[in-house]
């Protein structure tokens, strides 16, 4: 589904990704772990097409097409979704309005019929309820005044409504209390299926107890330095990143 080959990228002239290789097959969940500043969020932004990230080498194939040629909204329409490490506040735009424009934006781009107001409302209410989010939160401006945990939950709500084929979750677990972590993980697991894949970026093994990954990768110094099964996460938690970072150097 997603195939990253020898990806080099820099931000503001500073090289951050130095040859990332990573392939995720349909239905698989991969975890990416790695020290602070190793380039995990940079990878997620490069995948979603944020301005200011210069790809100098390598390629990313998504469902067989060249992902890097697409605008951010086209990537979304192709089925890519990024749950932001730091969700953005948008004063003056309610969560409902945001979701409606997003969902209908995807549908129009895909040549599908837009949902009418009633269908949309029903869909969002149902998804919000499953995530324990109140109607009041849907009427508030996107992420404005939301607590850290509420923002993360809001990212998962967007994912649940938009039903992407490939989701990148950038530290969606940080800032969540234990109950919220469980709810968010349930939300993520509900989306798992043979046609959907995920890349879960996290610092904590705990999340991987709930969202069990098929593969775990360690990103250090802008490259994948080790990959393994889910037991790798446990090993990392014991040893720390030091050993791996040394290997990357």
């Amino acid at each position, binding site marked *: 589904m997603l195939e990253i080959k020898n990806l080099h990228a820099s931000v503001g002239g500073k090289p951050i990704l130095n040859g990332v290789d990573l392939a995720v097959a349909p239905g698989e969940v991969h975890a990416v772990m790695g020290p602070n500043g190793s380039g995990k969020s940079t990878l997620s932004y490069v995948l*979603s*097409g*944020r*301005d200011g990230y210069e790809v100098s080498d390598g390629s990313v194939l998504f469902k067989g097409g060249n992902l890097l040629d697409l*605008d*951010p*909204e086209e*990537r*979304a*329409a192709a089925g890519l*979704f*990024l749950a*932001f490490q730091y*969700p*953005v*506040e*948008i*004063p*003056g*735009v309610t969560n409902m*309005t*945001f979701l409606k*424009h*997003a*969902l209908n*934006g*995807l549908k*129009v*781009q895909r040549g599908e019929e837009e949902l009418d107001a009633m269908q949309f409302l029903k869909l969002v209410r149902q998804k919000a309820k499953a995530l324990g989010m109140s109607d009041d939160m849907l009427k508030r401006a996107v992420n404005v005044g939301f607590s850290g945990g509420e923002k993360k939950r809001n990212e998962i709500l*967007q994912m649940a409504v*938009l039903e992407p084929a490939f989701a990148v979750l950038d530290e969606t677990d940080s800032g969540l209390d234990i109950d919220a972590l469980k709810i968010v993980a349930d939300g993520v697991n509900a989306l798992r299926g043979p046609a959907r894949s995920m890349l879960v970026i996290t610092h904590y093994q705990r999340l991987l107890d709930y969202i069990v990954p098929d593969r775990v990768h360690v990103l250090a110094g802008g490259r994948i330095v080790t990959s393994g099964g889910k037991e790798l996460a446990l090993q990392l938690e014991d040893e720390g990143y030091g050993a791996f970072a040394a290997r990357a150097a």
Partner: protein
Amino acid sequence: MATLVPIDGPAANPDWLSGWRAGPGNGTAAAPDWLPPVRAEAAGRFAARGLPNRRIEDWRYTNLAQLTGLELDWAPAPAEVAKESLPALVFGREADCRLVLVNGQVRPALSAVPALPEGTILTSLAEALATGHPGVADLLRERVTVDDGALKALNDSWLEDGYVLIVPEDVTVDLPIEILSVGTGGALPPAYQPRNLIIAGARSRVTVVEHHVGLCIGGYFANVVTDVAAGPEAIVRHCKVQDESKEAIHVALLDATLGRDAMFDSFCFTLGGRISRNELRVSLDGPGAHCRLNGAYLVGGHQHCDHTTAVDHAAPETHSDQLYKGVLDGRARAVFQGKVVVRQDAQQVEGHQMSRALLLSETSEVNTKPELFIHADDVQCSHGATAGDLDAEALFYLRSRGVPEGQARQLLVEAFLNEAIDAVALAGMRLPLEQNVARWMGERPQPTP
């Protein structure tokens, strides 16, 4: 150095004031005896000053020199306007109440005024002068002699027509009263100077929606003055959509006095005009009086828009709140000047103002000038200004969720401007604002990549 008066000055077009000098008089209704001398006095005031120039502090950022290059038709013949060519009501079609002015003159045949609550009067100034309505004469005679700048003097010198709205004590007018002002082109650009009056009795409530449009491509000069007198505990809402032709020069002064515990809300949405100025002067004369002056503007190309306010806290416990938000593109320029005066004995006063602008192009510019004159000590006043581009992170966030770029920008612009509406709770303005944002963003020339 554009010296405009005397009119035979070297830089001035000798023709531009010639029509004005002839004065009004071909109006259909008879003028009361007191009027001609008042007009003549005002004409003298204007002639002594000439058009405001940029050496005058209040006009530092807005240049009207362009006017002197124009030969204007000061007494345009009534233009043919078909009812079908008029725009829809600003607040939607369901209840029709609209007085239509063409080139500053009320046109009953184009208007639709239903029965209003007992004692409420909505009519033309020409009619009110002819019938000698005492309230109208009293307020006008008091206001006409106030020396408040050259353009007001020009308007004073021409007192002839405009709209008059009188709401008696304790009366609530539920229906928004819409005033449609249409400018038309002509062989010579028309110049017109409506004088409007809103008199709201004690405890009355009324909402006025002024819609200014141009039914032509060419230019004209509109010099509008509106006098508002709000009695104790009256609530007056004044909402204005300025969508004049892109070549028009639109200058408007609204002068409001508020009695005890009265409230005045103003919302001005500026879209049109080559050069426009919306000036508000509010005197909070009675204790507890309160005003909210808000505005939103969308300007591009070579448009210049100016929002100037002056709030006089003349009594204790008076409040004023101002929020102006605008979006600029192309080589557009916007001006916000806000003056707040707190008089010596006006304690427990609050006065806040904020100006925020979104600059969508590098060549657009906004000038902000707050002025606070505070002579009392128990006072809370604040002012602020920001100017910047659309939030790039919010734009990326929306796009990453599948919202196409153009739509995402539109949504952010709408959200930005909506705040100015929310603050005056004129929910009826939301739809017109959204529609205009959509239209404006759609027509906006795409920046070359």
